[in-house]
Structure formats: C-alpha cells, structure tokens
C-alpha cells in the first residue's frame, strides 16, 4: 500500500500499457516486436493483478500468484513463438508479418 497513491493510478498505467501493447501488436511489422507487444500486454495484466491484490484483497495472495503463473506462461509462450518465428525465418527468409500471408481469402 502506497500512501496517497490511489488504486486508480495503477489501473490507468496498466490500462494504457495494455492498449499500447495492443497498438504495438497491430502496427509492428516485425514478428518479434509483435511478440514484445504481447509481453507488454501481459505485463499490464500483471500490474492489474498485483495492484488489485495489494489494494483491495491483501488477505489472500491470489493476484500475486496469478501474476507468477502468467509470467511462467508468458515464458512458455515466448519460447514456442520464437521457435516458430525462427522457423518462419527459415522458410520465408524474413520475419515481416506482411510476408506471412500466403493463405488468405
């Protein structure tokens, strides 16, 4: 609990970060930077969990642990994603998302 800092500040930060991450996901053309945007999104969620836990429901550590699991999942996700990206790089000789549109319509 931080003196004089209301919960809403955290929420503003996390929400903005969340949408910045989404913006990045929508506009970055490099697959890895898109993945980074996803990390931003997950990070913002983590902030939410932690802040809620700390401010509102400090008796249990539910948000706390949720955040831990999310980090682990993020790691797993990143691992697989990067493996696939490398595979893409092998196949397409590029990791520009715009090139990955062989299948459409």
């Amino acid at each position, binding site marked *: 609990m931080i003196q004089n800092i209301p919960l809403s500040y955290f929420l503003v930060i996390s929400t903005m970060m*969340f949408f910045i*991450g*989404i913006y990045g*996901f929508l506009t970055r053309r490099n*697959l890895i930077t*898109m*993945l980074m945007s*996803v990390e931003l*999104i*997950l990070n*913002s*969620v983590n902030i*939410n*969990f932690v802040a*809620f*836990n700390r401010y*509102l*429901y400090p008796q249990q550590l*539910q*948000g706390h*642990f*949720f955040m831990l*699991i*999310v980090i682990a*999942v993020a790691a*797993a*996700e990143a691992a*697989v*994603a990067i*493996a*696939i*990206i490398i*595979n*893409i790089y*092998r*196949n*397409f000789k590029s990791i520009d998302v715009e090139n*990955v*549109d*062989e*299948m*459409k*319509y």
Partner: protein
Amino acid sequence: MNFSDILIMRHELMLTVLALVVLIIDLNLHNRDKHLIIPITLALFFIHTVVGFMPSQPGILFGGMYRTNALLLMMKNILNVGVLIILLQSVTWLKKEENREKISEYFILLFTTLIGMNFMISSGDFLMFYLGLELATIPIAALAAYTHHQTKSAEAGIKLILSSALSSGILLFGISLIYGATGSIYFDSVMQHYANTPMQVLAFIFFFTGMAFKLSLVPFHLWTADVYEGAPINVTSYLSVISKGAAAFILIILMFTVFNTIAPIYNHMLYLIAVLTMTIGNLFALRQKNMKRFLAFSSIAQAGFILLGILGGNTMGMTSVIYFVLVYIFSNLGAFGVVSAISTVTGKETMDDYDGLYSTNPKLSLLMMLSLFSLAGIPPVAGFFGKFFLFASAASAGYYWLVFIAVLNATISLYYYLLVVKAMFINKNEKPLAYFKSDLATRTGLVLSGLGIFVLGFWSQIYEIINSLSFGILH
C-alpha cells in the same frame, strides 16, 4: 485429501503419465524402430479412453481449484473418444517418412493439450482455467508448425500463437478485472459477487473475446481458416473438433454458472454474434475450393449454432450444446477423416480433385456425404438431431427469429455441402483419384466416426444421459 481422492483426477493424471511414457519409450527406441510408438501409444490411449468411462466420484480437490462430476467426466470422455478417432485417422499420415522422427512429439503435444483441456473443463477457478487454456493452445501452435518444409505450416503456427497470445492477453485483462471486482479467482465466490455493473460487463466482454477466439466466433475468427489450412490435417481436425469442443464445454459452464447474473446482457451479445458467425462463416465457406479451408469456415458457422444452445439458458440448452458438440465431433471427424485420408495418400486437397470420387472410392464418398449431411443437419444422421435440439432450446427462450435465421443459414450451408456431394457423385471426371486403401487404423477411425454419425441420433439414451447430468449441474 488422500490418495484415493487424487484418483478422481484420473483423466489428467493418466494423460500426464501417458505423455511421459511416450517420451521415455521414444528416448529408448532406435531410430528405425520409431514407428513402434504408434501402436503402443494407440493401445495406451485406448486403455485410457476405456478407463475414462469407468464410474467415478464427484469431488473437489485443491481447495476448489479442481472439481469434477459426472457431467465433466462425460465431457472429457467425449473429448477422449474424439482424440482416439483422430489418432486412429492420423496413423497413415504419421507413418510417412517425413514424420518418422517426430512421432512421439506429435503424441506428447497432443496429450498435453488434452491435459490442458481437461484441466480447463475441470477448473474451479480462473487460474486453473487460464492455465488449462494456455496448455491447450501453446502446444497446438507447435503442432500447427509441425511440418517444417511447408511454409504454410509455419505460417499457421505463427498465426495461431500470436493471435492466441493477443486473445489470451485480452482475456487475462478481463480476468484481472473480474478479480478486481469480486476479490476472488474462485468460480464459486466470483459467482456470488458478480453483479451487473458496467465494469463487470466489460470484464466479461474481454473474457468472452478470449473464449470467442477459441470457438472461432465472428469477428474473432479470422485466424481459423488460415491455421486450419496450413496446419497438418490431423492437427486441423483436432483444432476444429476437440479444441473447439472443449472451449464450448467450459464456456457454457461458465456462462450458466459464473456469469449467469449478467445473462440479460450477454444474451443480446450472443444473439448478435451468433447471427454474425453463422452468416459470415457460411458466406466464406461458399467460395472455398480448398477442402481444409472449406471445413474451417463450415466449422465457424457451426460454432454459431452452438451459441443458440447457450442462448437457451436452461438445462435443455446445456444438454443440446453438449450433445451437439458430441455429434459435431463425429460428423466433423468423418469429413476431416476423409479429407485427411485423401490428402495423405494423394496430396490432393481441393474440391475439384474430388470430382468423380464416387466412381473410384465409393466408401469414402459415402462417408463424406453422410458427414456433410450430418453437419448440415439432414436426417437420418445425427446432425439433424443435434441441430434440432439446439434450435429447440433457442426457441424455448423465445428466440424464434434467431432460429429462423439459423435455419436459413443451415440452408445456405447445405448449399456448399452439396457442392462437395455434387463433386463426388455428379461431376464427371476423366481421371478421378485412383482407388486407394488407407492403413487399417485409419480405416477404423473412419468407420468409428461413420458409426457415430448414425448411432448418436437414433440412440436417444445418449441425449438423456447428458440431459440428466446437465440437470444435476444447473439445479
């Protein structure tokens, strides 16, 4: 909690053991004997499936994080049967030389996703739910990119993993808000505190988009067709059938329990999305020539029908959704099985290749026709019953116009299903695909799905069992 209690988790435990056993066997096998994994795994999984049907106690473990009861068991068994059929159908494909070194990985990844789905279905809180969801998604992305030398496969993988990362991010944001609003991640407490406030609706919408992604509901469906097309065909059928089925199961459970209080709002939303999903799915399916892509869009449209059951909002709705998913699994596996068999042997995947198929491969054609009729909801095959009950449950809640739109959509869907029937039976072809015979296991898989398509409809017992179980959950 003691040892016997932990046995009610037997689906998950056995699968985990199974995955590990496969891994260990694989490590100890010489390279040229790798194909032995296939029969061993099939046998093991068959045992697992059978054991799954043995009666079990309902119960709650881990302080409410894991729960099980007869209905959930039923759902898992349904998934097991589906996976068994997929495994059988994929044997011919697995035996191909190019996959020889990756057989065990295929099984392990498939099993881990199944573990994830089981946990997801059995979850008693959002944490386990989320974990299960991710466990059910991430390995599939790897499976989608399974075939290295095909760019399409890699593309499918990246599209799946990134889209799912985004969607699960949004879903997580929703969960975090739910947590913030209710102070718990456990379903039972959330349910008590869930109120109809804007923020909780917002949280629900974010949560729902994540589920909509898994179910391929419009407008969260766009990944579907590309991934289905690019992924190896058996993975596609897994995605379209098992993954979607599991998502539908958990979604309807959550909708009917945790989020029940905001039903008046989500019903409107479901109405809109159902109409969009059916219509758009159908419109896209109309022009497809690639069979996998075709089935992808058809499965999108089918997902729209599932929403009708959820809209019913009662036991009948729940029963009809589960029953429909069951029927859908068999029907879609029938169709995918045929596409898979043909694609594996001949490499042909477009509708034009199917011209005149009946003259050379009548049995495959018949199975395909029955499966498509079942998907379209034509009697006497099971799809008719599945659709009818879904429509009935929507009608029970008074959504007559929605039912009307849905049946019209079913009519449109019949159009494109008939295109395939036409190709196989009516179109003339100088050189139809030559006659071929798939592996015994594959054929068994095809026969099983064909049997299911026939038996499920007439055998009302199945519906009644589901109904009694659903009744227990909701009352």
